[in-house]
C-alpha cells in the first residue's frame, strides 16, 4: 500500500449557517484547494448523515462535484451515522493507498439547524434499533445518561468531573474562531451556585444541559494525496498513518459489559498498529465528546489511561491544553460543535492544523503525532485515525 498524506484542509465555522447545504460543503472544499494549490482532484467523497431527512436533499456528492466544477471525476456520498466523516476519510485513504487515485477530496457537511430541536433529536435517535430501542423512546442522550450512571457507580466519576470536561472544552473553544460555542462556563455557574440547576438543568439523568454537545451546521474538508503529489505541494507533510474501524452490537443492552466501548478499543488498536505507534506516543487527540462522559470513557478505551482512570487524569490537568496529552484542543464536539456528518472531517482538520503548528493560541507545543476517534451510533461503529508529521 502507498503512503497517504493530508495536503489540503478547509473548514467553515461550526454554528448556524444560513447557506444551502451544498454551499456549506463547497466552501471548505475551495479553502482546501486553495490551501494546497490544487485546482482538481481525482475523486470526491462526501460525508453526510441527514440531508435526505433534514434538508430534503439526496445525492449530495453529485451536487457538490458539479458545484465545484470538478465534473467528470467520480463522487460518492458516504453515510455512517456520526462517524460518516472519518468513514469518508477512510474511503479516501483506501483509494489513494491502493493506487486507484492520486488525489482524493473528502468533504463532510451537515445542515441540522434547519430543523427544530425535537426533529433533530428524533432524527439522531433513528440510529438506535428501531424495534428494540427506538419504539421505547430511546434517544442518544438517554443512552448516554444510562451509560453515565453506570460509569459513575463503577468508577467513581462524578458530576463535577463531567462539568470539568465541559469547562475545559468550552475554554478551548474560546481560542477557536470556528467553534460553535464561545461561552466560558464555570463550576459556580453550572454546578455550585443556587442558580446552577436552572442554568444547567437535567436533560437525561445524570447528564445536564452542559454535558451535551450543541446541534450545529458546518462543513470541513481534507484533501488526501500520494507521496509523489504531497511532496510537490509546499505544505508540511502530514501522513495519515493509521486507520482503524470496529463495530459493536446495535443494541446497547446486548453488550456483555455496557460500560465497555469495544468498538472504540478495537478501532484505536488497529489504527495504532498500522501507524506503528503506542497510545503513549500520541501528543494531541480529538475524541468524540458528544456527551462529556464520552471523552473520559474514550480516553480510557483507546489506551491513554487505564480503565476507570480517565477522570483522574482529567482532574490532574493531564488532558488540558497545557497538559501532557491535550484532548479536544478545538473545543471538541462539546463546544466546537457537532454537525454530525462533518464532525470526523472537522476532527482531522484540527489535528492537521495542530501538527502543522498553525493552531495559534490553542497550539499544542511540538505536536508530531495526533489521533482522532469518530464515534457512530452509541459506540456501534467507530473509526480511529492516526496522523504523523514527517520531517
Amino acid at each position, binding site marked *: 500500500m502507498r503512503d497517504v498524506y493530508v495536503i489540503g484542509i*478547509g*473548514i*467553515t*465555522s461550526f*454554528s*448556524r*449557517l*444560513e*447557506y444551502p447545504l451544498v454551499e*456549506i460543503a*463547497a*466552501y*471548505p472544499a*475551495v*479553502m482546501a484547494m*486553495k*490551501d494546497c494549490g490544487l485546482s482538481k482532484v481525482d475523486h470526491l467523497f462526501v460525508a453526510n448523515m441527514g440531508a435526505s431527512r433534514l434538508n430534503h436533499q439526496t445525492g449530495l456528492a453529485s451536487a457538490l462535484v458539479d*458545484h*465545484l*466544477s470538478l465534473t467528470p471525476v467520480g463522487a460518492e456520498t458516504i453515510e455512517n451515522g456520526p462517524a460518516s466523516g472519518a468513514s469518508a476519510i477512510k474511503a479516501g485513504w483506501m483509494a489513494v493507498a491502493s493506487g486507484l487515485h492520486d488525489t482524493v477530496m473528502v468533504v463532510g457537511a451537515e445542515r441540522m439547524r434547519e430543523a*427544530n*430541536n425535537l426533529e433533530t433529536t428524533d432524527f439522531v435517535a433513528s440510529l438506535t434499533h428501531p424495534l428494540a430501542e427506538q419504539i421505547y423512546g430511546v434517544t442518544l442522550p438517554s443512552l448516554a445518561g444510562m451509560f453515565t450512571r453506570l460509569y459513575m457507580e463503577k468508577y467513581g466519576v462524578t458530576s463535577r468531573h463531567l462539568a470539568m470536561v465541559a469547562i475545559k472544552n468550552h475554554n478551548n473553544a474560546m481560542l477557536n*474562531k*470556528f467553534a460553535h*460555542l464561545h*461561552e*466560558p*462556563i*464555570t463550576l*459556580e*455557574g*453550572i454546578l455550585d*451556585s*443556587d*442558580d*446552577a*440547576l*436552572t*442554568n*444547567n*438543568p437535567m436533560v437525561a439523568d445524570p447528564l445536564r444541559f*452542559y454535558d451535551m454537545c450543541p446541534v450545529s*451546521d458546518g462543513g470541513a474538508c481534507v484533501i488526501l494525496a500520494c507521496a509523489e503529489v504531497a511532496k510537490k505541494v509546499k505544505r508540511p507533510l502530514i501522513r495519515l498513518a493509521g486507520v482503524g474501524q470496529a463495530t459493536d452490537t446495535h443494541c446497547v443492552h446486548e453488550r456483555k459489559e455496557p460500560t465497555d466501548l469495544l468498538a472504540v478499543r478495537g478501532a484505536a488498536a488497529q489504527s495504532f498498529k498500522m501507524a506503528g505507534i503506542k497510545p503513549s506516543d500520541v501528543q494531541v487527540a480529538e475524541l468524540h465528546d458528544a456527551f462529556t462522559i464520552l471523552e473520559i470513557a474514550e480516553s480510557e478505551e483507546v489506551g491513554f489511561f487505564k480503565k476507570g482512570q480517565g477522570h483522574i487524569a482529567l482532574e490532574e490537568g493531564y488532558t488540558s491544553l497545557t497538559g501532557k496529552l491535550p484532548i479536544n484542543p478545538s473545543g471538541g464536539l462539546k463546544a466546537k460543535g457537532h454537525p454530525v456528518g462533518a464532525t470526523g472531517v472537522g476532527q482531522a482538520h484540527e489535528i492537521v492544523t495542530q501538527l502543522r503548528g498553525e493552531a495559534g493560541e490553542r497550539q499544542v507545543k511540538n505536536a508530531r503525532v495526533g489521533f482522532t476517534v469518530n464515534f457512530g451510533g452509541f459506540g456501534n461503529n467507530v473509526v480511529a485515525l492516526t496522523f504523523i508529521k514527517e520531517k
Partner: protein
Amino acid sequence: MAVDLEQLLRPVDNPAPPFPPKVVTLANGEKMVIRQIGRDDIPTILPFVEPLIHVERDYYDIVAARLYAELLGYYRHRVQDEYVLIAQVNGELAAIVNGRRVNPQVGMSYHTLSLKRGMRVGAHAFAAKMEYHIDIMKQEEVLVVAESPIGFRRWMIEYNLEKRFHIQHELGGVPSYALTRELFERARHSLIVGSRPVPKPLLEKAMEAILPPSDPPKPPFDPLAATRAAYDSTGTALRIQRRKLERGK
C-alpha cells in the same frame, strides 16, 4: 377656555409596588443584576436598542422595533401602568423586559430583549418579569405572546402556559397564552432564580451607569467570515473563485 391637551393625552398611572433588585449567577459565573428603571433612564437605553432593529436574525428586528416604541411610549407617557426592568452584568446592559398592569388581577407581558446572547440571560429576565407580576404586584395571571421560536420555547413550552386564544393581546394578532399563579408556583423552584438583597458593590455598580453591551447581537454575518479571515484576509480570492464557480468556469 384653554385646554391642556397633554393632560388629556397622558394616562394616569396607578400606584404599583417597586420591583426589588435581585442578582442571578450566570453559567459563566458572572453576576447579573436585575432591577427596575424609571422614565429618566429610557433615553440612556434607547440607543442600545435601536441598532437591533436592523438585526434580521432570531426576530431581533421586530422585537427591537416594537420594544423601542414601547419604551418611547413609556417615556412620553403614552402607555398606562407600564414598567421596565433591565438586567446588567458589570454595569453593561444585558436584557430589557417590560409589560404593564391591565387591571389589579391581570398583567400583560410586552417584550423580552437579550442584548447579551446565551446563558439564559433573556429567560432569567423574563422570569423576573413574571415574578414582578405574580409575587410583587400580586396578580393572578399574566398574558404572554411570543414572536420568535426561541420565545415560544422559553415561555409557552418551559412554563407550560395556558391558552387564552380568545383574548386579544395588545401586541397584535399573535395567539395569547397566560401564566397563571398556579403555573408560576410550579416553575418557582426550577425557573425562577436569583437572590435578594443584591450585595452592595454589585448594586452600586449597576446603579452607577447603564453601560452599552460589549457584544450585542449582530446582523447575520457571512458564516464563512472566520474561514476567510484565516486563509485570505481580504476575501478577494475567495470571491473571485466563487464567481468563477457560479459561472461554471
